[in-house]
């Protein structure tokens, strides 16, 4: 079932290519601007606080330069608030995913996507640039804007997945989606690059540049995106024939299994509609959909959801806090820290791909997951003791990304798909979306809560305890899936024994 190389490329037109690039870069730009916020945290917290000075000495003069802004008394308080903003963002993003899916279903995907991109670009501009230009710092305004940003950004992901699902059918999807799923990490890298190259002019320009680019992306999407082959008279004939029964067999074919899009789009095309039922959204809306509680009690769903909550917590903590940690702990310049944090994403891309391939070859996910998570705990210990050397730190970072980003991708995508296609579900088309929604939703809530805990632990106990927290969380995710690890390892071993006996 592996994609036949030459034949399958020939079926694609330039429309496919444009749709691929537009959806890819939509999410790249979105993630780039998300990354910008985490990369300018040090600058923002400096802007919000007066200069810290020994109590016995007088404050630095002139006051306008050193003491004027007193939104927070010191950088610890500012750090707490920045952590709270991350939490707020993740919660509203999680909630928004459900809402925006419903909206996306009923309206033109192109409009929703443009609205999400441009709207969030404007909100980021107001948040980061306008408030600074007006010297207006207000925590309630910041919170309100970030809730709005979470809601607007959540409109993008279901739309790009739906568009991709419309254009790319089953044959070769593993390959196409494998490349496509790098968009979040590419976005992180682009965001880190953009932020670090303009940060010296002031953090407000980092927001300005990323929001301008994102807005431009929204405009281009509006004028260029075809949401479905149907729009230009191409048809979806290859995807409509597949029945849900076939997907069972299909889930065992070799594919780059680190892409969550794959399963959602399957949903899309199996339905054969060009108005899409978006992946992890509105399960209750669809016909014949399996109930939320019913899906929750499916075998494997609860363990993987909880495991993913732990893992996404760690993964997102790295995403949100890494540059801040690097510049605070090692005293490296913010731009240097941003550049270094890219290695975590590089590790995540490579890790997700390789581990997905390995798990495809084995036909089992949990053992690969368990091994990677064990190594992740080791690499976390190693990373927490990293010497203040940028090369060593970068290497350890890449390893940590490899072992944490890989499993995180796998659970959110391939494993969600496996769970949504299991025996107990046959005949219910909408189970996959519901299951993916539960896994992703639980993960997002875990990630949101984690941002609060990270800032709390950091300010009360220091960074070392944050790493212990990560290690415990990674261990927790192993614990939650341990029953599955045992059963899958057993069958794997039995299969091997049987094969050896045959020989």
């Amino acid at each position: 079932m592996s994609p036949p190389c030459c034949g399958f490329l020939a079926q694609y037109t330039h429309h496919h290519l444009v749709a691929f690039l537009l959806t890819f870069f939509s999410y790249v730009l979105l993630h780039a601007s998300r990354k910008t916020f985490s990369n300018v945290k040090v600058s923002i917290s400096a802007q919000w606080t007066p200069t810290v000075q020994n109590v016995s000495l007088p404050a630095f003069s002139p006051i306008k330069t050193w003491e004027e802004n007193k939104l927070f008394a010191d950088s610890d308080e500012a750090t707490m608030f920045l952590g709270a903003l991350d939490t707020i963002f993740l919660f509203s993003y999680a909630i928004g995913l459900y809402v925006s899916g419903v909206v996306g279903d009923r309206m033109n995907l192109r409009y929703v996507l443009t609205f999400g991109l441009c709207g969030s670009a404007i909100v980021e501009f107001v948040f980061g640039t306008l408030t600074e230009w007006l010297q207006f710092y207000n925590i309630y305004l910041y919170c309100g804007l970030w809730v709005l940003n979470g809601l607007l950004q959540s409109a993008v992901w279901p739309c790009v997945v739906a568009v991709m699902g419309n254009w790319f059918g089953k044959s070769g999807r593993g390959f196409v989606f494998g490349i496509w799923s790098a968009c979040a990490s590419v976005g992180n890298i682009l965001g880190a690059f953009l932020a670090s190259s303009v940060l010296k002019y002031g953090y407000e320009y980092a927001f300005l540049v990323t929001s301008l680019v994102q807005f431009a992306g929204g405009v281009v999407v509006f004028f260029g995106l075809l949401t479905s082959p149907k729009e230009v008279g191409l048809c979806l004939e290859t995807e409509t024939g597949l029945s849900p029964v076939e997907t069972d067999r299909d889930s065992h074919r070799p594919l780059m299994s680190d892409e969550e899009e794959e399963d959602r789009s399957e949903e899309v095309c199996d339905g054969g509609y060009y108005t899409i039922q978006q992946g992890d959204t509105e399960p209750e809306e669809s016909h014949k959909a399996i109930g939320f509680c019913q899906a929750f009690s499916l075998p494997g769903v609860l363990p993987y959801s909880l495991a993913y909550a732990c893992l996404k917590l760690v993964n997102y903590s790295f995403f949100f806090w890494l540059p801040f940690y690097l510049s605070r702990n090692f005293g490296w310049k913010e731009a240097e820290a941003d550049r270094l944090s890219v290695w975590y994403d590089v590790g995540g891309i490579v890790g997700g791909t390789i581990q997905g391939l390995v798990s495809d070859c084995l036909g089992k996910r949990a053992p690969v997951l368990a091994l990677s998570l064990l190594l992740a705990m080791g690499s976390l210990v190693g990373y927490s003791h990293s010497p203040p050397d940028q090369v060593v730190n970068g290497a350890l970072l890449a390893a940590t990304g490899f072992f944490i980003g890989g499993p995180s991708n796998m659970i959110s995508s391939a494993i969600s798909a496996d769970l949504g296609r299991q025996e107990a579900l046959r005949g219910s088309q909408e189970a996959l979306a519901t299951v993916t929604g539960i896994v992703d939703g639980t993960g997002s809530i875990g990630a949101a809560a984690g941002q609060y805990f990270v800032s709390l632990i950091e300010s009360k106990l220091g960074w070392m305890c944050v790493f212990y927290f990560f290690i415990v969380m990674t261990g927790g995710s192993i614990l939650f899936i341990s029953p599955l690890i045992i059963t899958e390892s057993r069958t794997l071993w039995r299969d091997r024994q049987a094969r050896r006996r045959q020989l």
Partner: protein
Amino acid sequence: MKAGCHQQQNVEAVLFIINVCLFGGYQLTELQVCHVCNGTVQNGTAIGQLCSASAGLLDGRCCLGRRENPSDADYVLGLDLSNCSLNYVDRLQEAATATMIDLSLNPLVSLDNLLFEGFIQLRHLILPAHLVCPGGNASWDKVEVKGESLYCEGQKDICNQTGHLSLTCPENSLCDPDGPGLYECNCVGDFHGYKCRRAGQFPIIQVLGPLGASTVLVSILLWVTQRRKVKSA
């Protein structure tokens, strides 16, 4: 001048006011600090000598220096407020250029720490004997009491001292003297903005231009190749 008088009143109750309103309006470049109390600088005093040595202009209690450019206002070279019955002094900013100030023979209780903020040229300060030199004795080359007066002579540059409290300004800024015992941390070179964290000017044209142009270009290109072919159902 009347309006100015009211404004003054609104800001704070100052002992200068009456003097200002009485003596104000003589000349456009009136310096209020010179008319805090009656009388003029006496020839025999230190400030009188300074004034005749530097060809300054006497105006009330001040010795004024002339600028090169005639349209510029005069500036205070020396200020003699001795024997003025002052209980306190809270505004001297007009005399920030002075090299010599005499506040002796006044019933002053104390002086504000920041009274001499910005007085970087002040080299001779005469105070009632029971006061201390601003910034402490360490901020002056020579401190001595003669009769009822305290002489603070030769202001030290606090930024270039060794052995004294180390004045480490934050990153991207350097120490500049700002009066006796006082200093400022000013951004170095290209740095500016709050906490001197910003460097250079953002090249807004170089960013907006190409970005806008390429957005328009790509939009047109994609419209022509993609959305123009949409078949309306």
